[in-house]
């Protein structure tokens, strides 16, 4: 066992940390949130230059050939600064699907463009009625008359950065009925294709998402990503990569909240002394640290499990990580607000922004209860 970072990993973390320290101060981020886009295309270009957008993409496609551990380390930095750019949607989820299942032609076209920062993707899988259920897909793809292509019909809900993506990886039923594991397929769809309607909004953490309606959207046969009728294993792996990446992000956010809270305990005076002099609050801070370290371990577990070949083992460990990180995140963020008193409740103070990012992540890819259920089914 070895939990140390390699030289390259350390260098990456340091250079990203420096960039974000300069560009993501609280006031700078607030200004960014107020722009229409809500994130920075200029920074996106810088990420491309630093090789971050190609981090998990193979070298032959213009990437760095990194793995889930590198992604987690990067996301941890993103979490510390509450980065708003669509990295998760584009690089982890969208590109993840293409990496795992795309044809050589799709990979050759899309992945270099992602690494270069010129194409952004959305992962349009979950539907409103499905909540967290991965097989509950009602969107259909039927063979287009005349052969060759498909016609997509349906709706996708809370698609991360869906309104500003250039293309969408869309799941649809090519066979089977609702809830059936078999019969799902993935398609690469031009986000501006006729019949695609996107209604964008912000999530509670300020990031963008969209409701997407697909009405008689025609795609060519080569838009199919991976095997027809057998996309579920790919979808699962994409979601698992998303869980591992956001686990890193939550760890970064917890670190930031912990640091802010400790600082506040030392400086805020009530009853003529720092509030941190109260042993009750010292113990709470220690409990936050316990949660943070347990969460950090789970984030490591998730990232090391992303490429585990045994599907059942992988799913089980990643569900454990989602639960552990979710619970740690909730505990740390709720207490971070509590120990700040009134100031923690305000939009003008950073802790609430971290709180909401952690909350939004907890409700992605299956919440704590969902993954506990899956784990409970497997208890033997």
């Amino acid at each position, binding site marked *: 066992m070895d939990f140390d970072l390699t030289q390259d990993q350390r260098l990456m973390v340091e250079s990203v940390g420096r960039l974000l320290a300069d560009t993501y101060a609280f006031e700078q981020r607030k200004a960014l949130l107020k722009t229409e886009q809500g994130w920075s295309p200029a920074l996106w270009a810088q990420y491309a230059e630093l090789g971050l957008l190609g981090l998990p993409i193979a070298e032959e496609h213009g990437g760095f050939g990194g793995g889930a551990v590198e992604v987690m380390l990067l996301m941890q930095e993103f979490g510390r600064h509450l980065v708003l750019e669509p990295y998760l949607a584009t690089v982890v989820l969208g590109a993840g699907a293409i990496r795992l299942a795309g044809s050589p032609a799709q990979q050759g076209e899309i992945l270099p463009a992602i690494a270069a920062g010129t194409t952004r993707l959305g992962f349009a899988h*979950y539907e*409103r*009625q*499905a*909540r*967290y*259920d991965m*097989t*509950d897909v009602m969107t259909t793809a039927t063979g287009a008359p005349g052969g060759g292509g498909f016609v997509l019909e349906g709706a996708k*809900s*809370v698609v991360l950065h869906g309104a500003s993506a250039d293309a969408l990886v869309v799941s649809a039923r090519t066979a089977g009925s609702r*809830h059936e594991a078999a019969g799902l397929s993935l398609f690469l769809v031009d986000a501006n294709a006729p019949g695609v309607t996107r*209604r964008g*909004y*912000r*999530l*509670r953490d300020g990031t963008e*998402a969209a*409701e997407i309606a697909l009405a008689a959207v025609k795609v060519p046969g080569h838009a199919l990503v991976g095997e027809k009728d057998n996309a579920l294993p790919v979808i699962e792996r994409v979601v698992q990569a998303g869980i591992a990446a956001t686990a890193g992000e939550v760890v970064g956010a917890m670190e930031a909240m912990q640091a802010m809270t400790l600082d506040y305990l030392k400086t805020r*005076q*009530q*009853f*003529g002394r720092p*509030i941190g002099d*109260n042993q*009750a*609050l010292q113990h709470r801070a220690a409990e936050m640290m316990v949660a943070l370290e347990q969460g950090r371990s789970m984030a490591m577990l998730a990232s090391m499990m992303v490429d585990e070949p045994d599907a059942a083992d992988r799913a089980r460990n990643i569900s454990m990580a989602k639960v552990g990180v979710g619970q740690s995140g909730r505990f740390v963020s*709720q207490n971070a*607000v*509590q120990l700040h*008193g*009134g100031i*923690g*409740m*305000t*939009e*003008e103070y950073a802790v*609430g922004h971290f*709180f*909401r990012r952690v*909350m*939004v992540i907890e*409700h*992605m890819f299956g*919440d704590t*209860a*969902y993954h*506990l*259920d*899956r784990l*409970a089914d497997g208890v033997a």
Partner: protein
Amino acid sequence: MDLRFTPEELAFREEVRGFIRDNLPREIRERMRLGHPARKQDIVAWQRILNARGWAAYSWPQEWGGPGWTAVQKMIFLEENLAAPAPEVSSFNITMLGPVLIQFGTEEQKRRYLPRAANLDDWWCQGFSEPGSGSDLASLKTRAVKEGGHYVVNGQKIWTSTAHNADWCFLLVRTDPKAPKQQQGISFLLVDLRTPGVEVRPIISIDGSHHLNEVFFTDVRVPVENLVGEENRGWSVAKYLLGNERTGIARLGKSKERTRFALEKAREVNMNGKPLIEDRGFRTRVAQIEVDMKALEITQARVVSAYDKSQDGRPDPLSSVLKIKGTELLQGTSELLMDVGGPQAMPVWQQELAALTNEPALLPEWAVQATPAYLMLRAASIYGGTNEIQKNILNKAVLGL
């Protein structure tokens, strides 16, 4: 020992429930069910309907326009009102200002302010906390200097809920900075917020709403007849205010109503291919909440019936138990509903704005509203004396550690 309500109490509950059912405007009820915070106009409208029935000032004696209820009746009324769900009567007007004026006010103050407070003709707010004085309230610095017939007030308050809606503010000020103990130099003033020199600035909270404010006082002249109680004795007034009337502190009716609503919605959303309501894990979580609510219901009833029997009317230290568990349940049930909403609870989406342009419902409104409610309720363990401070009170008052 008997856990049952008396026949009279049961009849009273029916009467209250029936009145609310027949008189609460449907639109207000529906908005509250969907989880919107009550709007100013809704709060005013409902309080006036209650006041016409003689119930708005539910905790006041009949002499001053209250119904003269027992503590058990007050508890029943509050629970039914929250369970409806209806807007709560203004706690600033009814549970804070009213009892203080009845106890410490002059006849003139009572006549002038009480009827208007009951009818919400004046909207009051509470100017206690300051940037440097939260849990340690007695360290407050806002200064009032007597000049002829006026106090001249200078200083700053913060976290002043609804000050932007308010007409008046009851304010704690320092009138004697040299008093041997901090608590001895404080006075309680009534301030008309239209007085020159008062400036209210908004604070946006993490739910995105404007509820909180900073209030700045620059040479604000307050007539001396607006002093409540004696000069430099304001701390006892404040303590009476904070300790008085803890019947409603647990707001149990709201936790019950939100749990019922979450159960209703759990039939409409899915978990692993079945309705969430059929999910064992979910049912276990709700069962735990119900256990906690039941225990609190009985603890609350114990506190309330002891209050009815006690002669001195002093607050029961057990009211800190009500505050701690009551706020934990408010937070827990809001968390439950947000989790039921799941991914659809995460967007910021104003259906009301969309409705203006006839757009179809993009997202379920109840789910979208569940998250700001959850976020705002994180403050429930901060305001009204933080839960840490409540535990300190229990230590000092009961445990003697």
